[in-house]
């Protein structure tokens, strides 16, 4: 049973004006099978948390620890973290011209699984996974994310989630920029994977609307670089009604309209 333990995590980012501390002591434990929603206003450091865990070179860990089943994640390279079972569905997936989606998926699956998947099974597996997410098979031959719409990119992130089968999945604003249909398809994809595995999910979002599709076990309010309040699903309802005013001293809605 996988456990991700984040203890007193402090993270800085280098800017033109020198290092700026974004995360100011984050404590969070995510166990297998649990879904934690991280909700917070813009600029509170939610994305920094996800990138820091995944190992983006722009972010510097100044203190604290991140352990996956007791192993020190911060000592691992980016790819080692992924192979250890961490997955980050990115808010802004990167375009890689000239590398086909099918080549990319197979290369990634080979790396994460430790051996090349048998071609016949693999083709079938990818085909089904794409169909489940309403992805046109023609995308397999297109370059990774190149020219994809926002919704298409997010579907492909969730496609990778299903194929790479991580122990811990971090979904960074996967709902942003999605219309109602796309949000439903993407959420169903996440739920399908949750249903088929014991994955622990960190669901980062600004808005409560994705929580209508993916039910969290825990809700954490993120403000000013740390967790300001934790609770159950009822905390999301409260945010829906009151917004983030209590945490940041000004009004910022957590619901749309």
């Amino acid at each position: 049973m996988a456990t991700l333990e984040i203890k007193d995590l402090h993270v800085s980012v280098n800017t033109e004006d020198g290092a700026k501390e974004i995360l100011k002591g984050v404590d969070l434990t995510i166990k297998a099978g649990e879904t934690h929603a991280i909700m917070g206003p813009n600029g509170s450091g939610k994305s920094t948390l996800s990138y820091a865990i995944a190992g983006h070179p722009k972010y510097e860990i100044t203190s604290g620890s991140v352990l996956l089943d007791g192993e020190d994640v911060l000592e691992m390279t980016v790819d080692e973290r992924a192979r250890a079972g961490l997955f980050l569905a990115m808010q802004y997936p990167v375009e890689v011209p000239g590398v086909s989606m099918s080549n990319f998926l197979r290369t990634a699956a080979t790396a994460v699984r430790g051996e090349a998947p048998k071609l016949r099974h693999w083709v079938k597996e990818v085909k089904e996974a794409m169909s489940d997410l309403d992805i046109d098979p023609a995308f397999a031959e297109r370059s990774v994310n190149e020219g994809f719409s926002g919704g298409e990119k997010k579907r492909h992130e969730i496609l990778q989630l299903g194929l790479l089968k991580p122990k811990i999945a971090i979904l960074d604003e996967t709902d942003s920029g999605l219309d109602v249909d796309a949000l439903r398809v993407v959420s169903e994809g996440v739920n399908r994977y949750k249903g088929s595995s014991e994955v622990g999910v960190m669901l980062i979002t600004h808005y409560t609307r994705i929580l209508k599709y993916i039910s969290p076990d825990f809700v954490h309010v993120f403000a000013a670089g740390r967790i300001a309040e934790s609770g159950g699903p009822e905390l999301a309802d409260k945010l829906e009604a009151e917004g983030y005013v209590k945490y940041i001293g000004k009004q910022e809605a957590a619901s749309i309209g």
Partner: protein
Amino acid sequence: MAVTTEDQQHGLTAHSHGAGAPVTSRADHFTSFDVNAFEVPGGREEIWRFTPMKRLANLHNGAEATGTATVEVTAAEGVAVETAARGDERLGTAGTPGDRVAAQAWSSFTEATVVTLPGDAKSEPTTITVTGPGAGQVAYGHLHVHAKPFAEGVVVIDHRGSGAYADNVEFVVGDGAHLTVVAIQDWADDAVHVSAHHAKLGRDATFKHTVVTLGGDVVRLTPVVTYTGRGGDAELLGLYFADAGQHLEHRTFVDHAVSNCRSNVVYKGALQGEDAHTVWIGDVLIRAAAEGTETFELNRNLVLTDGARADSVPNLEIETGEIEGAGHASATGRFDDEQLFYLQARGIPEEQARRLVVRGFFHEILLKIGVPEVRERLEAAIEAELEAVGA
């Protein structure tokens, strides 16, 4: 990723531009078969300013031939291969030397190789292997490829070996012919190669010219395309990979003097290692008579390590407003760390991720080469380049 891009469309007025654009028009560029008509270049001249003259083995300064390059032709059925002596009237018909080294090669070659593709017929690929004269030796050569009217075929020119070699390579593409050329420069580390390619396209002729430059100390290639009839279509593709200390220079010139012709130039290069240097100069001239011209040129460079330098200068001169379209783009960028992060975040080890990105960068060119056996070899060669530095 630090990228500078200039994408521009031109149409209505006559003008030229590009960083360091020549003061004079390309139309005034001097050409001659007489080596003495050219002054010995010192390196400050516009056409030589990027070239390391000291490393040219005096090819520009009267170096005499001390050896010969070996030319072996594996001809497809129906393709004629001959050797021709100086004075053969076919030689020199595709173009005139445009710099002193090309004129020197014209004056100094002992025997030309003439390859003729039969007209109104499709032939299998023909391979011409040119092996340098050996380390410390100097040689000059001449190659003439003639695709007769409505011929269709592929010619691969494979350069390898050591030494200094200068040559003129002619392509006469007859009316309605389709000629595909792949010129591979896979020289040994010491080699110096200065080569002028001259292509003359007939009416409705299609010419696809791919240059692949990987090995050699200094390689300088100057492909020139001219048209003699309407409907000519030239595609100039280039792929180069410079390692530490290498100087790889490509100067393309498409001379649109006839109406309703087309040209498309796409060159892509990668650089790695201290003092790896690449130069791409893309000249396109649309003369007043060349109404209905359609042209585009693009150069992209991927700098993989510190200490490497890519120069990229597109020059587009337009003397008529009555054209279909004309444009150019040039960009040189560092390796994109975000791409690397994304691939690694999916479990792909860094080294493999780098290769994926570089392979992806060249993919467009490799796809267009259209000669499967060449493509496979080049993919392997690019892999080897990447392994060399452990990128």
